[in-house]
């Protein structure tokens, strides 16, 4: 073995041990407070369409499958909203021993939106009689992309191979079936919830065992963006917090906090006697 390869090996060995050694955090305190509430969509409901799975008959369903990002209940109840505490928690929480789970079933991900604690393992199963690949495309964490070509395959990715850093949200997709998409919110604590898509509980979420404190809550929806609220809660208290989403409008952020407007002068092009001069735009400020 040549020396270069050798020191490579030593470095690589350092990686494995270092990664294996990093899981001894103290588990943070849990409390007794509860935040629960409802996510709603206001405004014109989007037209609900089904997912076109015609490309792969193995994905065939008897009834059309609605596109999850467009689902809005009768009174605007909005499922698949990831609600979590964005700031206000400083303690560290261990990732649970049991892995989070995502299944590929009927060429859809189940669950469509879910949460994990940074460093938690992830179990991925394929219940379909077709090949899937699982492609996580995080921005902060490391990307992974591997195949599960057979029905019934189970892969458990250890915490060191999943998401070690908090990141809201990470997109998970299948490149064979481009309509398949799931989102996972990775946070550092267990205080998150996803609004339900069950018929009777649609839009509802509940975060339990919360210690008393003042927090910033963030609710995220894949199509309608994020909404944040501040909340202060005492031990044993149950607070009702509702989130309202609307169609994002107007594009870029308003320029309210920018400096006062200044005059813009454009360069002009010449106007000789014989040419039609393009008029100078806007206010014209003579320059010396």
């Amino acid at each position, binding site marked *: 073995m040549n*020396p*270069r390869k*050798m*020191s490579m090996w*030593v*470095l*690589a*060995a*350092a*990686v494995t*041990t*270092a990664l294996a*050694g*990093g899981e001894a955090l103290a588990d943070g305190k849990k409390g007794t407070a509860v935040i629960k509430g409802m996510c709603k969509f206001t405004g014109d409901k989007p*037209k*609900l369409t089904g*997912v*076109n799975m*015609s*490309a792969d*008959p193995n994905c065939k369903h008897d009834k*059309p499958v609605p596109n999850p990002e467009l689902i809005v209940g009768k009174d605007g109840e909005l499922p698949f909203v990831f609600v979590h505490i964005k700031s206000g928690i400083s303690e560290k929480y261990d990732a649970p021993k049991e892995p989070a789970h995502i299944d590929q079933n009927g060429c859809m991900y189940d669950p469509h939106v879910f949460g994990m604690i940074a460093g938690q393992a992830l179990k991925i199963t394929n219940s379909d009689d*077709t090949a899937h*690949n699982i*492609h996580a495309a995080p*921005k*902060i964490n490391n*990307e992974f*992309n*591997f*195949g599960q070509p057979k029905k019934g*395959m189970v892969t458990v*990715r250890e915490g060191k191979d999943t998401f070690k*850093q908090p990141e809201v949200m990470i997109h998970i997709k299948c*490149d*064979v079936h481009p309509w398949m998409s799931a989102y996972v919110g990775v946070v550092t604590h267990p205080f998150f919830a996803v609004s339900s*898509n069950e018929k009777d509980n649609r839009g509802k979420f509940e975060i339990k065992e919360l210690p008393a404190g003042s927090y910033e809550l963030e609710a*995220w929806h894949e199509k309608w963006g994020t909404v944040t609220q501040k909340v202060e809660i005492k031990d044993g208290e149950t607070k009702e917090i509702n989130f309202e989403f609307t169609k994002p409008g*107007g*594009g*870029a952020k308003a*320029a309210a906090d*920018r*400096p006062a*407007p*200044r*005059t*813009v002068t454009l*360069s*002009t*092009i*010449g106007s*000789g006697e*014989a*040419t*039609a001069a*393009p008029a*100078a735009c*806007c206010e014209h400020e003579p*320059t010396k």
Partner: protein
Amino acid sequence: MPVVTETYRNIRTLNIIFAASALAALASMLWMLKDDHERPWREHQTDYFNVQAALAHFERLELSSPESQSRRTELAAQLDAALEKAREHEPLEKALAQREAKLNGELQAAAARFGNLNAEYQVVIWEYEEHKTLHGPEHPATVKVFERMKRDEAKLDELRKDKETLEDALQDVQNELRRLRAPVEAARKALSDFDKRVADAERREQMYGKGITRTLFNLPGLDFAPPKGVPGRQEIKQVVLPDVRQDYSFLQSYSIDRCTTCHVAIDQSGASLEKMVAQSEAALRAINAQRVAAHLPPLEVVIRPKASSAHGGHGQPHAGGAATPSSGDAYAAAPEQRPASRVDATHGESEADKEIPARDLPPFDKMSPDLKKRYAAALVDTLNEHLKEEGREPIRFEQPLLAHPRLDLFVSPNSPHPMSRMGCTSCHEGNGQETDFMYAAHTPANREQEHEWSEKYVITTWGMPQATFHLIEEFWDRLMMPPKYTQATCAKCHTQISDLASYRGEGTADKLVEGRKLYTQLGCINCHLVEGLGDSRRVGPDLTHVNHKLDTGFLHRWIWYPADFRPSTRMPHFYMQENNLPSSRNDHDSDPMLRTETEVQAMTHYLQTFTRPHAPEPLPEGIEGDPKRGAELFVETGCLACHASLGTVDPRDEQGRAFGRKWVEDDLRHAGVPSEEAAARAAKMTLNEQSLYAIEHFTRERHAAAMRELDRLRSTGGDTDSLYIPPDFTRFAPELSGIGTKLAPNPDDPVQVERGRRWLYNWLREPAHYHPGTKMPRLFGDNYYWREPDVTKRRALADKDILDVTAYLLTQRHDTFKPEPIATDDRHHQMAQSLIRTLLEGQFSAAAADRMVNDTKHAADDEMGPLSRAILKQVERSLSRDEALAKIQSQDLHGKQMLFLGAKMITHYGCNACHTIAGFETATRPGTEMTFWGEKRLAQLDFAFFSPGFEQLKEQHGGLFTHLYPESAEYEHLIDANGNEPQQILYNRAAFAYHKLRNPRIWDRAKIKKPYEKLKMPNFNLSPGEAEALTTYLLSRVHPLVSSPVQVDYAHTTWGGIAAGRHFVDELNCVGCHKIEDNEPLIQQYFLVSERSGGRSVDELNAPPWLHGQGAKVNHNWFHVFLRNVEMLRPWLKIRMPSFHLNEREATTLVSYFANAAMQESSAVHERLGAVHRFVDAAQKRAGMTSQARPDADGRTPGDDWFSDETMAAHRKFLEEYTLRYRLVRPVELDPTRNEPANLVAGYAKAVGNAGFLADLYDIEYPFVEPPRPAMSDERFALGEQMLLEMKCLACHVFGDPYKEGSNSRPTAPNLNLTSRRLQRGWVRGWLQYPARIQPGTKMPQWWGDGGSLVQYPKELYDEFAGKYGPTHEAQMTLLEDFMYEAGLRNYTVIDPTLPKPSETPEGEEIQLDEEDEPEIELDE
């Protein structure tokens, strides 16, 4: 008795004379010593000593501060603790030491035993050989010796094992001992380091500080005594540079640079402003702690308003100067702010006038360059108060006492340009041997600085001025390069220039590279030859059949003032310039407007008369263009990579705005204009106004600066959401918002519309047909419709695309522009005649000229008149004589006059240099050669009335020369935004070129010239940045005067291929679509995915492929063919790869470029990795580890924290940038604030490992040779197929014939039978292992390699897989590769029988849910 000799000498007198002359000699010697002692460089060195002493003092202050003292106490305590701990395992240590001694003894004995036997064994071998030779192998003696030999061998083996066991045991004991002793040693070292720092600071303070040592060292007349280089001794420092020459009229000699005599600290990394400020801040804290303890008020740093903090320091070369807004500086300083824009003008100034207390300041590294300087000055002022109280000399932090700002690149011995080799004047020019500011020929950056210097530095002898700036500028050859243009000198060694390119424009000679690029792209080369720049195409379109494309009206208006139709055009302006506007009227040129109108008419007449036959293809029948689909195609297929189009609606914009409107609106809003107002303003602008706005604001530099900022934010985890990235308004190819108006001025005229359609159809189908030299590639090839097997139908589909785009383009109009012909009247006729007379003047007598003008035949039987003959002579070389004659004879006299005048004007203005024009194919370049322009003497440059001294005269004598700055509205477009900064004309080459480029007619101002003596160089409306870049390029045109060892070797290195290739990919605009090196493809701004979080990201899967490492990926033969005949590789992309018209050599240039770029990248990364590995190995060796040693219990090995070592900083920076750029690691993994040390080590180990993976992958050979293919049995072939099918590769890929029943009809990945032809096998192996390392974000799942699919297979499944296809990963990959290569050769098609056949629902259509059923359908599961 002495003989009395009579002499004429009188001893007495002589004594007096001798005494007097001795006194005089002594006096002059003393004077000499005094003069020598007062030379200005000594002052700088004294200043430097003072700074050094002060810094040492500061360090000592800091080290004596309570924190430092407590740190020392802590270190001492740590040592005690370590010693205490060591005492605990003292018995163990003793035992180990005994054991070590014992083992050592045993080992020596064992080694001796082994050695002895070995010697004996060698003898036995010899004996055996001897016996065997003498008696034969069967002889008993031989057999006996043989047996003995075998016995010895066995014994020897035993002894060796004994010895090795002992060695290992000893190693273990030694390692253990080292481990036991390590804490004590580390603690001892930490403490002694601290004490050494204190002692060192004291020593430096004493050596450098004012005091007896320093005085002694520098005693006048005795200063030769102390040895050279002693700290505190003033001395002249010089470097002799054998490779850099100076031209002393006919004799070239070595350069000798003494610049470091004054710029003492230029090579000291400690003398950078950053470090000095950091040290001073620490000192200030220490001082204030002391002051507070002594009940004194603490010192506070306050930045005073600008006016009062002006420092007289001379050499601040990077100060720029407020009056010339150098765009580059502005970008570098604050990328989020627009450069050179009047929108921000007020914003920038207000900051400078305020008094800012230090507590309100951002951290030093976040300050703008200007603020940094002001802050440093304020800090020094504060510290000087303290120094004054202490009785020390005051200090300052400015040149010449600072380090070079780029020590990583220049000066320092480890940099690529060490001072001992390159010196100073090879880059900065000037007079290196001089030690005086004036004689060294420093060049001011701007007029303010010139004023300041000319007052400050004047050399006088006996009161007479000997050298002033004026004299030096005028009469000296070797002026220093103005700081703005220093890059020009890079070209002396980097003669090809392109190898200095970095698309992001960082750390390289971006201005020079840009200048070189502009020189060819704008067509400067078409008029002004530069030897060695390679062949150059004509940049303008072919005009030999312009009548098929344009109307007279359009041509008139276009030539007259192109910007009127298209402000962004690269066509330069000949008319409406200051020397042909009405105010330029003079005795010889009575009506410039009438004259120029006539000229335009004449040229147009010529262009339309003398056209060559052209046979455009007829429009295909039965296909109607659909403008709506055309609009989609226009955006999707990639036209926008080269053409901006402000009128095109952005398909991704929710409000349906056109690009121009959207860009302007967003930009205004980000400049602080309220949303509604911004929208209203943008909506009110015409397309031309938007275009003007875009030219000024949406420059590539600004875009690139914002992208750099984005990168920075990403790597530091900053807020990318609120970062505004302005668009990049390309002027590479014409902006297309008015193309409909151009081709069909009157949309209601069916003839015009039909001509426009036909021309566009032909142009899009095959651009080279109309213009053989065009860069426009063929985009709408039939090959896009590869799914259609029928060739005729394929063509019809392509035709449909073309006609759709044609229909769309014709709707792009700008109807405020009226392309009407210039009305002709008698005055024009007379003007034409008088112009012809002017032209003939001097060559012809008045009578002959008359005959010429009237085309009067000389003799009655002449075939034609002289005018006709002259015209015929011009055109007969490109048209047939009969055809030409017929065209001439069909003209009336005025027509002929106009043809003659037109031809003369085309020659005069040099239209033929950029355009192909019938009759002018072989004409020579109209402009002067520029090959050695940078050496031109100042006396050869005509500054006209702007010659030296005029500014002062103007100041002294009020009205004098004021007419050089006319305040006429007529001039506004020339002088203001597009013209010159009038007060900034310096008397040097750079200023001449810069002002000429900004306003080419400026040196005609106030001159009285005849029409055709006037300056005629056209105005390109260059921005200040562009003019600077071109000036830099022109200044680089000199004889290099460096010897070949320091020049870059292009012939035998990868750089040759890279330099040629970079130039070529720029010219073809490959970089507009593809990311090749570190460029940001322009097209990506149209592929943005709006993200809900995480800022900007590009739709990578649908954008054109990333060509990073392409040279190591594809088979070079295939690549060569592909470039010339593009085939469909990625059918799922909507954007199309066009076919360029490349010849063999050009294709080779590209192939070689990609290969060399990969090789270069590989070697650059290997070099850095090598340094890391050497560091790690050395650390392990120091720790006594053999390379077999394992990480200790904490998972650490010595040297794994190489990245925290100071000496590795440059390597670390490189590897960080490299791995982050190619997403081999995530920013968070290298972030020390967010990682435990062990994790950080892991992050860097990953960076090193992954960078090594790519570096190995790109380590290829050029030309590439395909390794021989192993033969494959049919069984193995079948096994390979089975494996491919089992892995479900065909869910995304096709393999073989795509038309065959059962093939994947909607592939989302390339056809695998391309593998054998297209890909290098080494790359395929890498791809199977780690696809995402090669192409981050790829759809390809990872199969082998750590964390790949197969590694994660459940055990029984994997065992089954391995049982079938091979026990190891290597074997499995080899099987798959062999199969792919073999199947490609056999042209075999693989069909996956399990592959689902898509149902009938057409692609892309969503199933609509029945709205009434909705609740039940979706919501119940």
